[in-house]
């Protein structure tokens, strides 16, 4: 790895180091820096670090060989650790057998299945779809695990060889579990590295990610290679999960969050080097071990140690080298669509308000049983809450849908908004407080973006995870930010135009209507913004950053503006979030609480403001389903599994519900003649493509292609003219046509 240090990088590094020293010094624990203590810290650090290293190596292998970053890595490990518990503890299988079945049978099978069913379809998908599907897999595994092994029963996995005393070094006992962990981690890193660089399969794996169709031509079978890669990934996830469960407890959230730690280690490896991923794991482990041994945060900061991995992740992202502006990433899976006309947007906005007003006033006769969706104070409160999450989702439309920046931090920004509003006006019911919060949250949005402004999209997603996680552990759990004592008294009702808006039962009708109006106004604003030069510029930088730069777009400024705008909307949502719950709890904002919002918006169509409204309905429908069906245990995690499965479906339907509804249903509206013409054109095009595909199929192409077959293919594709004038382009197109069919073998 080539390291080029710039003066600014060195200055930032020194500043961070100084800050770290200051934090450690200010919070020194009672343990002196004595030899046994140092040995203990190193042993604890290395054994934790070894587990992180295993997880990170798997993550890096999957990413560097398939190009897909697996957010579900931790959740898969979690599921497999629970499975191991089931076999080993609940069913009393002998440990070697249970280990063999989980690590060498179930894990690889799961990896191959994930690859065949989902991941192979994602290789040409946008980053947004790739991320949504893997996050969907993550939520699904979390939910499935919680459904099978419900959390109300306590479970634990023992350390390996717990009864054996272990080895003593300098008076410090080294348990066998720790020794195994450290040795295993080193062995796995060594084997993976050797596999990638010394074996045929490994070389094929690395070739495939560079150029799939070319690697295919030279005899590698892309399907086999990516299957092997996902199998390996799942095996490392299983090993890491089983080893770490005795430390963290068999708790779904804890085991899933190991993935953030693995992210940090993988980011140190720049997502490509197995040895550096191993080193990264050890660094995170040693940092955690050091803090555990020598640092003692006071009660106010008691969760700070858990923020070490996201902090390291952020720092690693800061030091990544600048990304090149890449070309040749364009995709052609869109249909033509026209912009929403102002009158259509206005009608839509008024309809949204109308529906909510009618419901809140009880004008809609209700027919769903006795309690679902009835205009009770409970449901009025929930309705306001759902509209608030709708506003958070609206904040993602310009950011993710238009500018293509995937951020998981907007829920955390809303959390900040809620906490701040309690201090700058919410405690007196002052409407100006909302304005202040909005103004403060705009720069906060930019803060999330800063580490990633220079980098490609995936790192922004990672940085936003780090931000959300840091905010959760360090800030939201600090009593000065969200006070436990003031619980329930944080906000006074807001007085607007003679209405009282608050979470108190009599004020809830006004609240839900106010939220509907706010939502509809923002919806209309966004639809109009889509017609403006700002939205065009954001879409341009998402579609082709290189081309945008070459027409004079300053990418950095454009991104900063969209992050600030998005942050401001999320901040407004935050004030309402605080007001609608009336109280805040310290653990209200774990990083994955925001994930279902992002997923459901993407599933409904992240580029369209109206998708936020549909996403609100989707979001409400999961708990509703649970209640209507009288709360069966099978649906206990439906709020995780539902959005998860919906997001997984994006592997098959990547564009979002609004897109498909528009394509298939817009023609039914009498005034949409354009949609009907569009549909007829698309159908004709698809028929042509089908015929061509059949003809290519009839050629019976097998690798390696014979000159005779290539000539036949040239004829089918009718590219003689193109070949004479632009051989490279013509051959590439040809490969793409063949690659589609051949890669699925």
């Amino acid at each position, binding site marked *: 790895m080539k390291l080029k240090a710039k003066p600014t990088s060195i200055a930032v590094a020194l500043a961070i180091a100084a800050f770290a020293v200051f934090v450690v010094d200010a919070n020194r624990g009672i343990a002196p820096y004595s030899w046994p203590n140092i040995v203990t810290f190193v042993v604890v650090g290395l054994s934790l670090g070894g587990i992180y290293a295993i997880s990170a190596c798997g993550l890096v292998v999957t990413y560097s060989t398939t190009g897909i970053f697996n957010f579900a890595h931790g959740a898969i490990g979690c599921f497999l650790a629970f499975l191991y518990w089931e076999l080993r503890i609940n069913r009393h299988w002998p440990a070697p057998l249970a280990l063999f079945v989980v690590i060498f049978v179930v894990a690889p099978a799961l990896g191959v299945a994930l690859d065949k069913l989902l991941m192979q379809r994602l290789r040409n998908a946008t980053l947004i779809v790739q991320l949504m599907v893997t996050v969907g897999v993550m939520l699904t595994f979390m939910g499935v695990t919680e459904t099978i092994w419900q959390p109300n029963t306590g479970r634990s996995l023992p350390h390996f060889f717990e009864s054996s005393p272990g080895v003593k070094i300098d008076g410090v006992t080294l348990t066998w579990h720790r020794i195994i962990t450290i040795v295993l981690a080193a062995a796995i890193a060594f084997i993976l590295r050797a596999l990638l660089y010394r074996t045929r399969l490994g070389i094929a794996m690395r070739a495939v990610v560079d150029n799939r169709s070319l690697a295919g031509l030279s005899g590698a079978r892309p399907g086999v290679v990516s299957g092997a890669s996902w199998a390996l990934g799942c095996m490392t996830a299983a090993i890491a999960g089983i080893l770490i469960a005795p430390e963290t407890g068999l708790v779904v959230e804890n085991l899933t969050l190991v993935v953030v730690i693995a992210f940090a280690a993988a980011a140190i490896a720049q997502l490509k080097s197995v040895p550096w991923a191993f080193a990264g794991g050890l660094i995170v482990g040693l940092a955690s071990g050091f803090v555990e041994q020598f640092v003692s945060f006071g009660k106010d900061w008691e969760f700070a140690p858990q923020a070490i991995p996201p902090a390291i992740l952020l720092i690693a992202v800061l030091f990544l080298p600048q990304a*090149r*502006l890449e*070309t*040749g990433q*364009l*995709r*052609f*899976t*869109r*249909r*033509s*669509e*026209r912009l929403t006309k102002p009158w259509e947007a206005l009608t839509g906005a008024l309809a949204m308000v109308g529906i909510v007003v009618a419901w809140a006033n009880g004008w809609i006769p209700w027919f769903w049983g006795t309690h679902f969706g009835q205009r009770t104070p409970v449901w009025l409160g929930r309705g306001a809450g759902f509209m608030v999450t709708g506003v958070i989702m609206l904040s993602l439309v310009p950011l993710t849908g238009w500018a293509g920046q995937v951020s998981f931090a907007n829920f955390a920004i809303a959390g900040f908004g809620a906490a701040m509003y309690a201090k700058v006006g919410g405690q007196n019911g002052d409407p100006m407080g909302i304005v202040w919060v909005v103004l403060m949250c705009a720069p906060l949005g930019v803060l999330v973006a800063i580490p990633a402004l220079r980098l490609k999209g995936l790192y922004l997603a990672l940085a936003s995870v780090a931000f959300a996680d840091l905010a959760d552990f360090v800030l939201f759990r600090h009593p000065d930010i969200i006070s436990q004592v003031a619980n329930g008294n944080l906000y006074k009702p807001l007085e607007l135009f003679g209405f009282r808006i608050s979470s108190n039962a009599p004020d809830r009708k006004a609240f839900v209507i106010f939220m509907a109006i706010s939502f509809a106004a923002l919806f209309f604003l966004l639809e109009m913004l889509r017609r403006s*030069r700002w939205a*065009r*510029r954001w*879409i*341009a930088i*998402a*579609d*082709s950053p*290189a*081309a*945008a*730069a*070459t*027409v*004079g*777009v*300053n*990418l950095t400024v454009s991104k900063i503006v969209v992050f600030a705008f998005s942050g401001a909307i999320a901040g407004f949502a935050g004030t309402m979030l605080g007001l609608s719950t009336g109280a805040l709890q310290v653990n209200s904002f774990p990083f994955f609480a925001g994930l279902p919002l992002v997923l459901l918006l993407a599933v409904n169509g992240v*580029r369209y403001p109206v998708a936020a409204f549909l996403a609100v309905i989707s979001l409400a429908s999961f708990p509703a389903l649970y209640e209507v069906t009288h709360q069966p245990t099978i649906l206990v995690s439906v709020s995780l599994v539902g959005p998860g499965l919906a997001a997984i479906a994006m592997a098959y339907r990547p564009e979002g519900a609004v897109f498909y509804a528009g394509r298939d249903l817009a023609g039914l509206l009498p005034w949409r003649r354009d949609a009907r013409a569009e549909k007829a054109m698309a159908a004709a095009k698809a028929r042509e493509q089908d015929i061509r595909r059949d003809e290519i199929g009839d050629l019976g192409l097998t690798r390696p292609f014979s000159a005779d077959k290539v000539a036949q293919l040239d004829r089918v594709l009718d590219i003689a*003219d*193109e*070949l*004479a*004038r*632009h*051989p*490279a*382009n013509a051959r590439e197109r040809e490969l793409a046509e063949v690659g589609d069919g051949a890669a699925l073998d």
Partner: protein
Amino acid sequence: MALLSTEDVVVRFGGIRALSDANLEVEPGMVTALIGPNGAGKTTFFNVVTGLHEPDSGRVIFDGTDITRTTPYKRARMGIARTFQKLEAFSSLSARENVLVAAEQRKAWDKSRFSPGAVADELLTRVGITDAAHYMVGTLPTGTARLVELARALAMNPRVLLLDEPSSGLNEEETVGMATLLRALVRDGLAILLVEHDMSFVMGTCEKIFVLNFGQVIAVGSPDEIQGDAVVQDAYLGTVGGRAAS
């Protein structure tokens, strides 16, 4: 003095020299071609000139200013526009919006009075794709999308225009139209540098040709001189037929 020139530009990819000591000059009022076999370094050269790729050494001079370390968007604002070999149109914007983005961006540096909308409509007419104006570019045929890219580049009112295989994806009729358009543009004083494989297009449209092979300029001259050059024939022209069939 040339409007755009490069001095001893070197780009290495690992151990391979994609460009070694490439010296080129582009003058206004003239169509200049850059030809060479696949992998000769033509697209890399474009990337160096537009700032997408920083050279390992050498200088890029535009209108007397050294722009070797200038960011891409600033170069665009100085008047360097380009199209791409592989399409880089904004595929989820309509054809008209693609051109509008560039025309609106021009407001940031061009203080003359103009309406971006009018500029966009005029350019769509000029390249002949008014019918496609309201279709999303991702749904358009490659040839049409290339013309969108051309209109987008022109919307910046550039001083030098770099075209990467402009006739690729166009049918014969469209290719003739493209040649006519390029001639008209240079008459207005624009400097055009194009990369092209279609030799009849190059020979019929360009005044000056640079031949690139293995990252080095091996010949410079008028179309007639290049066609008669033994070194060029050996390195490039003589093998064209063979390459296409291999």
